[in-house]
């Protein structure tokens, strides 16, 4: 059954081999269908990988029933498998060193054919980091780019969420089995991406999250993307690893400058110090480098009265707290509350922590 895909599912699911090992085995087999012709390859495999491995492969190589059962299982879980030889396999991803040979997918696989940009950052971001992520992800998604990230806490989750909220598309690349939700509290987001976006993983169902898999996952995030945007990375953030991958894979790297007094943006700022041309200051900067027209928010149809205009203008200048807004507008507490809600509901301003407001 189905040549290359069958061989890969056999090696990955039944024999338990990861991409690197599968790569070596395919190299041995050359043009031959490794599964059908395994007996003739046995000696060379045993020599290279030991007789235990070869023996296991020998036992299962022609067991069609076992393989069919595996395919059934995947189909019932709503998981699509795509091999590097399939036409659905994204062209960009093929260009990286050691591309994944087999992808497990849930959701809209056509997204892999769209123009993608990776947005990554630390799992413990500052409020600034989250805001920046939301701004870039929303705007770039509205420009028609698919936002790729890793479904981790912090920046990753915010990037996915913002893209979906903007009505855009997003791909989450998991560092664990395709059916595992990690971290568990991202379950609602996972479901939403499955419905409105795409989840992919190099790991089949049941594979638990483990630390060495996250760096492997990072190469796919950058591999799928034309460029990678780092919105906020601390000194040891895993997103720096993704940034390096992007550079190694010849992709664009974009870095948003961070607060120099905060340790949370140290990694980002170091990237900019090393590669000043990476710095971007607005979503438009990114869009321009990717050769797309920036997205303009349609001007709100809502009529603002004089005081509301003044308030919005004031917030455009700086984030202000309730007391400052009272002074600015001359309203009483009760009226100001009502006005703030109105502007908030129309998406013109935002309520921040500690009684601050911003646009």
């Amino acid at each position, binding site marked *: 059954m189905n040549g290359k895909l069958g061989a890969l599912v056999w090696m990955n699911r039944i024999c338990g081999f990861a991409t690197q090992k599968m790569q070596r085995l395919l190299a041995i087999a050359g043009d031959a269908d490794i599964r059908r012709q395994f007996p003739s390859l046995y000696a060379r495999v045993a020599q290279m990988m030991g007789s235990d491995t070869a023996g296991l492969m020998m036992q299962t190589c022609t067991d069609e029933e076992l393989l069919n059962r595996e395919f059934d299982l995947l189909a019932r879980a709503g998981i699509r498998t795509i091999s590097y030889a399939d036409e659905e396999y994204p062209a960009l991803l093929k260009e990286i060193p050691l591309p994944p040979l087999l992808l497990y997918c849930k959701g809209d696989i056509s997204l892999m054919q769209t123009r993608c940009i990776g947005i990554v950052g630390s*799992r*413990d971001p*500052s*409020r600034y980091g989250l805001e920046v992520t939301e701004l870039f992800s929303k705007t770039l998604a509205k420009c028609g780019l698919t936002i790729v990230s890793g479904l981790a*806490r*912090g920046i990753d989750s*915010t990037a996915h*969420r913002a893209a979906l909220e903007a009505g855009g598309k997003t791909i989450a690349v998991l560092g664990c089995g395709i059916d595992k939700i990690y971290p568990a*509290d991202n379950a609602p987001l996972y479901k939403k991406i499955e419905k409105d976006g795409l989840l992919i993983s190099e790991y089949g169902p049941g594979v638990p999250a483990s630390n060495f898999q996250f760096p492997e996952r990072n190469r796919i995030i950058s591999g799928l993307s034309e460029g990678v945007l780092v919105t906020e990375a601390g000194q040891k953030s895993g997103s720096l690893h993704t940034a390096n991958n992007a550079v190694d894979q010849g992709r664009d790297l974009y870095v948003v400058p961070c607060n120099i007094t*905060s*340790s949370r943006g140290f990694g980002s700022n170091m990237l900019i110090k090393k590669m000043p041309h990476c710095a971007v200051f607005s979503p438009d900067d990114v869009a321009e480098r990717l050769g797309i027209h920036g997205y303009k928010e349609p001007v709100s149809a809502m009529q603002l009265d004089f005081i509301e205009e003044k308030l919005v203008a004031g917030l455009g200048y700086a984030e202000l*707290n*309730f*007391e400052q807004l*009272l002074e600015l507008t001359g309203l009483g*507490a*009760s*009226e100001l*509350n*009502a*006005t*703030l*809600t*109105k502007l*908030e*509901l129309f*998406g013109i301003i935002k*309520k*921040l*922590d*500690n*009684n*601050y407001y911003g646009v």
Partner: protein
Amino acid sequence: MLAVIKSYALEGIEGYPVDIEVDVQSGIPGFDIVGLPGSSIKEARNRVRSAIRNSSFDFMPRKVTVNLAPADTEKNGSAFDLPIAVGFLAGTEQIPDAALKDYVIIGELSLDGGVRRVNGILPLLISALMAGHKKFIVPRDNAKEASYILGAEVYALQTLSEVCSFLGGILDSKPVEHSEYSSDPGVNKYGIDLSDVKGQNAAKRALEIAVAGGHNLLMCGPPGAGKTMLAKCVPTIMPDMTFEEAIETTKIHSVAGCTDSEQGVITLRPFRTPHHTASLISMIGGGPNSKPGEVSLAHNGVLFLDEMPEYQSKTLETLRQPLEDGFITVTRIHRVIEYPAGFMLIASMNPCPCGYDGSRIKECTCTPLEKRRYKSRISGPLLDRIDIYADVDGVDYSDLKTGIPGENSAAVKARVEKARRIQRERFAGTLTHTNARMSNAQIKKFCTLTPGCDRLVEIAFDRFKLSARGVSRIIKTARTIADLRGGAEICETDIAEAIQYRVRETEA
């Protein structure tokens, strides 16, 4: 010879009659107390003996049996010392027993024959008065508290010999003069005023709405932002206690033994701040003497939970019943006691364990996990009962120094009282008193929304990912805001303002 003295014992905040029968016979000397006495009553024997001797009476070695009837309820406390001593003296014919049946006698004895104050005089006397008793002998130190009970003839005496002379007709004592309840309207005696708080207009408005509609309130802000100070102002803008409320509050505090002899009746609304390490018993009541706990001591006032996430979830869980029903049930081995516990809950929390998440002055040092753990501790059933959430940020130094003092408590209180009046009329004849306690049916009936309001709620529902509960909290709060401005209908600005005080639980 047998003597019978009338006395009263406490059950919860009510009194019940206890007949103290003292039988003195010749025979092998002994002193037995029967009728389920608790340990403090068993010890009465020693106090009574010394008090009698030191009051120059004769404690003759006799066979004495004291029965506390009804014999099937466990009795505690020291308030039977005096009636037992009087019973013994009557039983040994050292004093005449003719006058005894007219009095209810309550008091503890000290070894030198002095009569000491007891807890719960107010509830004891009120129950006895309602049962038809008119004349009371109580400790002198309880006089002030007893003086508020209209129609009671209270004799407050200081020693056992005084009591005996009085009963024998030798001492002519006047009954305690009746005190009128007065709450001194217009005078703020809480020692703090809303005008002391500089700035903080968002939070002050939240307090006003919360108090006006009886809504529970959660304040969130960095350390030193003034949360505790704001909470302390809440009693100053609550309506003055009515006489009934004052009596009920005093009853509870009297039973708990935290009234003093000067004060008499409690006129200030309680402000209770149990520490987060407080035991479950001190929170809800119970223990060997079935004392009322903090939730009851806060009755008619404020229960302030500072740093709410620090409280054990078990403790927070127990607040559900009082928040729902206004009373708490304390289960004891022999019986179940109910204490009133109708308080306004004010809780404070920091945005995160270190306190500086989102702050502009200091950077937060917490990990995401720590932050989530902290927030998850207050989620759930308790948060559902908090209608109003206010962010509180620190005030600039310049504002602290020169800030224009805002309105004082009296001005705010006047508006609150007006809004409360509207609610009294609205809910007349029902068990509900405030907007916060409206049932779903009442929300439907009293909070009809105009199409414009409806649309506003709908947009907010989507935009802020509100829950169904979140929506009904906003509507109840909007009802109160409308009442504060005297509006019959809820209008769009009321809803809009209420939305600013939404509990931002689900927003990331």
